[in-house]
């Protein structure tokens, strides 16, 4: 039988072709965010979010003013409760704005889905939250036993615990109202201990070693990044619950 065999060059070309088609390097989180930024720009990434952001900043200022009378007595508890306020309301309000929008369905069928855009926004909101936490820690009234490192680490601890847990719930459960997760987590972690026993909570937060608060904040930050990565890569998420169902 006269079988035509490929030349070594043809074989090499075919192998190269197969490798180029079959082995594509998976994109990491920052690659995805960079591509989204390049394609959409900040204008489209934050379309329709001006009001939610302004309202969230107002909520945070309002919360601080509301707690100002007990600031000296319960400084650590108040800082712990204040830190996630911007993040919680910014995520909640932007999510509500997206889901009541009739474009939600259409956006979920595009290359960059709302879930990916939400992940990008959540990272930005947590960055803004971190800046606000730092500012509040710096501006908080100094007293004899006020420790700025403790204040800042407690604030970041609260912020990243709230954000990582909220994203976990929003990502893992496909409930109709799961965008209320941040506010539920905030209530459970930051407000409930104050309601149960503000004195005990303040005493606990002021005595817990700073090394522990820094470690918890670092672990929560790592978990937050992992949750963001999972949120970006979600493929199976039904949206029928929200629009047109």
């Amino acid at each position, binding site marked *: 039988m006269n079988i035509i065999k490929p030349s070594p060059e043809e074989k090499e070309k075919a192998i190269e072709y197969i490798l180029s088609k079959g082995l594509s390097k998976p994109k990491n989180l920052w690659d995805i965010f960079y591509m989204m930024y390049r394609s959409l720009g900040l204008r489209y990434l934050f379309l329709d979010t001006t009001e939610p952001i302004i309202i969230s900043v107002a909520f945070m200022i309002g919360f601080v003013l509301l707690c100002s009378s007990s600031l000296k007595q319960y400084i650590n508890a108040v800082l712990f409760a204040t830190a996630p306020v911007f993040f919680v309301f910014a995520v909640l309000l932007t999510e509500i704005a997206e889901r009541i929008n*009739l474009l939600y369905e*259409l956006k979920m069928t595009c*290359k960059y889905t709302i879930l990916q855009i939400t992940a990008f926004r959540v990272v930005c909101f947590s960055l803004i939250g971190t800046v606000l936490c730092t500012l509040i820690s710096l501006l908080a009234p100094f007293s004899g036993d006020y420790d700025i490192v403790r204040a800042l680490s407690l604030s970041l601890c609260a912020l990243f615990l709230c954000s990582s847990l909220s994203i976990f719930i929003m990502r893992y459960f496909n409930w109709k109202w799961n965008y209320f997760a941040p506010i539920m987590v905030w209530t459970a972690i930051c407000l409930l201990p104050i309601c149960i026993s503000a004195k005990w909570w303040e005493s606990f937060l002021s005595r817990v070693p700073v090394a522990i608060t820094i470690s918890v904040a670092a672990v929560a930050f790592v978990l937050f990044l992992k949750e963001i990565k999972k949120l970006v890569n979600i493929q199976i998420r*039904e949206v*029928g619950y929200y629009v047109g169902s």
Partner: protein
Amino acid sequence: MLAVNHVTKKYGKFVALEDITLEFTRGVYGLLSPNGGGKTTLIKMLVTLLFPTCGEILWEGIEITKLGEQYRDIIGYLPQDFGYYKNQTPRQFLNYLAALKGIDRNDAERRATEFLQLVSLGDVMDKKMRKFSGGMIQRVGIAQAMLNDPKILILDEPTSGLDPKERVRFRNLISELSKDRIVILSTHIVSDVETIANRVIMFKDHKLFCNDSPSNICRTLSGKVYETWDIKSVTQPYFPLTQRQEDGRTLVRFVCETGCPTAARQVTPNLEDVFLYVYRDEVI
């Protein structure tokens, strides 16, 4: 090829679609069923907004959920309730959606202009959409669905809100677009499907009732559809389909499975006759 293999979709205990198997290659496919028949559920599964409870949907042999972004890149979708930003112009709106679809900015600008002209909105592409009629918005919707030059174009009730002239223009546009892609459309307007669809897919009792060409489907009632002026004679066991006024008199169209009245004239059945007859027990 897009393949739907033994797909069932349940919402709790309610079965919206049961054991549906379909294959889509190039051409126009019309989905036809009464309200709540499962058309939108199937469409939402095809665009990955919903997922089958059982079965699988494959594009070129790979499950669409596994393809993710790759699959979303090749679909164009016009939802039933199409939202838009009233303060944006069609050009701005299409540029925004093009960015979401990952289309390069320069390319997006060119395509937005091209498709807006194709749907006859070239003159108003820089005017705010706030004052647009339902038909104009629907045309913006069709243009956005075409932006990424999709291999699969899925349109849910695309002709609702269009006037007769716009409907004819839409039919021509779809015929043009379907030459090199799969077009799947659902509609209540039977005449739209009859004119442009290569195949009509009908659901009954949440199952696949038929998947055939319009002419073959019409043939199922061949020799059974009649017209008469004698409205009183159309009683049981005949099934009345439609009535129309001509010269001040009422002409009744009906289905007769057995012997027919002598005054009646046999006519060629159309898709609307089949639709009305097939779904006679359901509220349409």
